């Protein structure tokens, strides 16, 4: 099998996609947004609960999607809960660099290590949108919840 494929569909990714963390609704969400990938029609809904200190207390997502988008959403929710909005946005910036194969050295080493499972996406430019959908939707929820589109 193609090495780049093995890199893309690692165990961790498949596991995240089959058993997504934080999958579901948040009834007491303060911020929500819908994301949509017009390429395949996939959609994701992101629920966040942000407290007065701008800290993301809880997060959840719903939706159908490919392994990459599901794993990315699952991993993101796992990593983001408990962070402040500013920290989440910084993490997102690093993630975007990583999956586009750009310099991601701005990432905290621990974060870099956890996100490393997604680095394989950079060899698949046509799949980058799948990986970033959840992140864009999270950002859009934080910004007030207009519909996000994979970009």
């Amino acid at each position, binding site marked *: *099998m*193609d090495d*780049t*494929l093995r890199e*893309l*569909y690692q165990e961790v990714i*498949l596991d995240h996609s*089959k058993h997504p963390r934080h999958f579901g609704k948040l009834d007491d969400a303060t911020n929500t947004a819908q994301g949509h990938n017009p*390429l*395949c*029609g*996939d959609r994701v809904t992101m629920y966040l609960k942000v407290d007065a200190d701008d800290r993301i207390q809880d997060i959840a997502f719903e939706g*159908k*999607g*490919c*392994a*990459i988008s599901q794993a990315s959403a699952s991993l993101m929710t796992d990593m983001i809960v408990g962070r402040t909005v500013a920290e989440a946005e910084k993490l997102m910036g690093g993630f975007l660099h990583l999956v586009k194969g750009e310099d991601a050295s701005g990432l905290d080493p621990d974060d870099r290590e956890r996100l490393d499972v997604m680095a394989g996406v950079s060899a*698949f430019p*046509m*799949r980058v949108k*799948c990986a970033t959908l959840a992140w864009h939707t999270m950002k859009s929820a934080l910004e007030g919840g207009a519909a996000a589109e994979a970009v």
Partner: protein
Amino acid sequence: MTAQSPVTAAFDPLAARADFEILAKPVYGKPLVYLDNGASAQKPRQVLDAMRDFASTDYANVHRGVHYLSGRATDAYEAARRTVQKFLGAAHEDEIVFTKGGTEAINLVAYGYLAPRIQPGDEIVLTVMEHHSNIVPWHFLRERAGAVLKWVDVRDDGSLDVEALEAAIGPKTKLVALTHISNVLGTVTPLKEIVARAHAKGVPVLADGCQGAVHEIVDVKALDVDFYAITGHKLYGPTGIGVLYGKRALLKQMRPFNGGGEMIREVTRDVVTYADPPARFEAGTPPIVESVGLAAALDYMNSFDRAAIRAHEHDLLAYAREGVRQFNWLRVIGDAPGKASILSFEADGMHAHDLATILDREGVAVRAGHHCAQPLMERFGVVSTTRASFALYNTRAEVDVLLEALARARKILG
């Protein structure tokens, strides 16, 4: 079944393959297995050569010049029109309008024919398996003029219920717009019968032939269809060109769509009068080089026994259909009798995009997504499908590669 095609087939795909340079070029070091023909077909060197030769020998703008090259170019452009006329079996060459593609051909009917005839509440009958190109122009008339879209369902096997379609045609129906062949299901609609029934109720029929003209041998006169839209790039021809066939009497009644050079009779500051069809609908410099390429593509198709091509494509479909039965995790969508060589399917626990990515790395190009047919996706309760679509140059050996790649994808993702 074996990977050898039956000896009865008069058509030799391997010989034809040699005409398509791109098919010999590996991707990721593997042989290319191009099964995305429903989206666009590759072009044989006969087409590419014809275009290049024309551009470097006979090119000029058409119609309005009196010089040598202008005459040569005009002759080539009008000869292309006659080639299309014969290909579709149209009665007159002025029934052939060159457009920029299949989508524009349908929009031309929406803007030029239907828009001035629509009153709020008037109905357009269409099927749930239409391509967005045969949906959105009618949605425009809904949004802008109050038209009502009447959707006709398909059966679970993807076949069209002609009775249901007929029943949907009422006194307020102004047009039936349906596909000749579904780009997702492969379903071939019984166009002749549908046309007869619609005409019995006084309603004209537009057929989206973007897939139909590729896989069926079309005779618009025999079908008696009012409008038939085709697109060059799926017919082994160039991008940037399509055709609207329209019955002469209907085209004459249509108002122009784009305004510009060539489509007028006379322009003054206060008044403009329009040329007769087809010029009325060909504003501006047309796709001149592309017309030569399209004619070369149709000539190419006709250089074979087209019935034998059809048989070959059906053989590939049957072979692939049989082959995927081994995968109990795979569900084919669209099994209508007599369907064309398009195989869409859904795989348990595997998203179409993941599947397509893995197939791609095996050299197998398939399409994943909604195929510009979202209402059909909804009908079958899916967001997207994976689609393998076969052209004249595909082989059983390529189907084998597809099947192996599917098995491998299952191992990776399953």
